């Protein structure tokens, strides 16, 4: 018995000593961690914000590493729904993320100290979507171009219109209403399936009014200065008139109880042809394709009855994810990162990864590949025909909007508050959030 106790005591002491020595050794051994000599490989960490392309991204990294054997690329994709995002988690545990994928707003605000100046990179000549900071310096490499609007099921709509349908022919509110009536008449009881998730009605739909100026920042500055009376703004009101139409009991599948978690159900309905139209972006195809392989397209969201109003004839398109290179990374890591970005733009395997494998619309003119998913094709066509306006969501604080503004819009849709209250909520948000 005495032996047992002594043994236990001894092993606890030994264990404690071992832990201490290990930690000391670890501390001292880390000085040379990131600096690399010309012989040893450079390690860079890339955070990927699009969880659904994790496999393709990792494969792309492997292809890049084959061509560049002295660079090691470690791709870490975010886990959807994590409280602590991947970049914060890695940085807080002491690692340096060399290439970080951010949305444009975060890259310019929450993480504005992170990105280094990329204005002199060659690929700037191939794109108009590069992200510039307040001083005009390029700090974001446009990774993915996406668009949003009224997604429609082509088969259902053409059955109602009786022939080939040009989405851009619906460029007034009246024409939209007429279309909805036609679809109803063709046997589809509810032409619209409107999902009211906070991020959709808030971040996406409710930011569209910012496009009334070709530079949405102009509108934002007016709001922040308190110089904008939304209730008197025709565009702002116009979008909510259209929203009323879309969520009404006559046309909306969920019109009786418009608020709820309808994302999946709405996409099933439109995908199968039980309904015709919903509001979302081209990423909706992931949900639609699970149900049916029908053809889909985008219509612009009309804001008034003037067919010449550019807002009625354009779809919101822009870079939704940008890559920044960390100022705090070592020079060799930054050079390796720049090589990777160039590989994405100029190397055939890189171009293939972005468009063909990840089905992302490339922001770069020189990419010869074309996406095949119908919604991506629709956006590409809109870009080619010059019928696009800025992606308004890129100009707002998406986290704030989904937790503060989104719920207000939901209240408005659920008839729990008036449009005046909604306007006041938005105005007071911008007065108190000057960032």
């Amino acid at each position: 018995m005495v032996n047992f106790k002594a043994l236990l005591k001894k092993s606890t002491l030994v264990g404690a000593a071992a832990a201490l020595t290990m930690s000391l050794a670890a501390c001292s051994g880390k000085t040379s961690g990131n600096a690399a000599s010309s012989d040893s490989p450079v390690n860079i960490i890339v955070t990927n914000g699009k969880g659904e392309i994790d496999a393709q991204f990792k494969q792309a990294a492997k292809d890049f590493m084959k061509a560049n054997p002295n660079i090691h690329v470690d791709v870490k994709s975010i886990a959807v729904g994590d409280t602590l995002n991947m970049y914060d988690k890695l940085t807080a545990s002491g690692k340096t993320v060399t290439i970080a994928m951010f949305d444009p707003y975060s890259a310019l605000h929450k993480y504005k100290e992170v990105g280094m100046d990329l204005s002199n990179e060659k690929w700037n000549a191939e794109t108009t979507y590069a992200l510039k900071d307040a001083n005009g310096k390029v700090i974001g490499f446009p990774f993915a171009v996406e668009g949003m609007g009224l997604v429609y099921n082509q088969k259902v709509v053409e059955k109602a219109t009786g022939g080939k349908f040009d989405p851009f022919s619906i460029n007034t509110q009246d024409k939209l209403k007429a279309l909805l009536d036609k679809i109803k008449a063709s046997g589809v009881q509810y032409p619209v399936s409107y999902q009211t998730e906070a991020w959709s009605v808030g971040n996406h739909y409710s930011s569209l009014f910012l496009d009334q100026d070709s530079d949405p920042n102009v509108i934002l500055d007016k709001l922040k200065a308190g110089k904008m009376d939304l209730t008197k703004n025709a565009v702002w009101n116009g979008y909510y008139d259209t929203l009323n139409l879309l969520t009404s009991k006559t046309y909306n599948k969920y019109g009786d109880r418009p608020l709820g978690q309808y994302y999946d159900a709405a996409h099933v309905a439109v995908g199968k042809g039980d309904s015709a139209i919903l509001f979302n972006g081209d990423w909706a195809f992931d949900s639609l394709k699970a149900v049916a392989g029908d053809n889909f397209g985008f219509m612009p969201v009309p804001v008034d009855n003037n067919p010449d109003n550019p807002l009625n004839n354009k779809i919101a398109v822009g870079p939704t994810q940008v890559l920044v290179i960390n100022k705090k990374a070592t020079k060799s890591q930054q050079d390796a990162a720049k090589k990777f970005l160039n590989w994405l733009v100029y190397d055939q395997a890189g171009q293939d990864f972005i468009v063909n494998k990840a089905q992302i619309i490339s922001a770069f003119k020189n990419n010869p590949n074309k996406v095949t998913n119908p919604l991506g094709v629709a956006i590409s066509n809109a870009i080619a025909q010059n019928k696009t306006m800025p992606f308004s969501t890129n100009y707002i604080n998406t986290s704030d909007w989904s937790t503060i503004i989104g719920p207000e819009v939901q209240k408005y849709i659920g008839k729990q508050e008036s449009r005046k209250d909604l306007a006041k909520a938005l105005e007071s948000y911008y007065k108190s959030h000057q960032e």
Partner: protein
Amino acid sequence: MTAKKIVASTFVYLIAFIALACFIFPFILLMINSFKSNGEIITNPFSLPSHWDFAHFSDVIAKMNFLVTFKNSVLITLISTLLIVFFSAMAAYHMVRKPTKYNKIFFTILVASMVIPFQSLMIPLIYIYGAKLQLIDLIPIPLLICFYIGFGSALSIFMFHGFMKSIPLEVEEAARIDGCNTLQTFFLIVFPMLKPITVTIAILNVLWIWNDYLLPSLVLNNETVYTMPVQMKVFNGTYMNNWELLIPAILLTVLPILIMYMIGQKSIINGVMQGSIK
């Protein structure tokens, strides 16, 4: 059986079955949907599959690096649970038998610690053990086990503490008179008498650790050391979940625990037999 007894027992069985239906139907839902494709799952969650497609299971096993991930989960869960149970039983025994002021204060601190919101500890944990001590990189799995013991001790001690009082003091005094010291008294006499509660606590810990996502997601940064819940996350998409893979993954994660629970149950019942011989 009298009429009254028949009515009473039918009533009891009825309640039992209604409860059964309520409790088990989501599980059944998971099972029938694990054989369907995404489209079928979303459109008809309640129908039987049109054809029973086992391909999803093999898909999941491949995509999740199943053998390695499973091994990680088993390793971490077993070692953590064993150590938690042993250390907590010992600590609770000491605190019950020697209710000094210090022990009471320590017990209060333990109970209070269970209420600390985990979010307030996330950043400190990865800062101290990641950025400062580099242990997250060097020894992720042993570090995770240490964390589980640290987090799990409070509840286990709390539960042992309550049930320890049901061990009659006379039995211990008899052992003392026979010449046992404290250690012997504990391991040879008291611990075996706690079997039902020990198995219960073990089951609860296994359950928590096996299904835990938050702690491993912070500490395990390398795919080769992921546990099942962390690995499963790849099936969660930004806008839509990949149900046809997520659901089989959930079932594969849940099945081992179900089996363990059924086995563990038997030993609780055997413990009852032993207890009644007492």
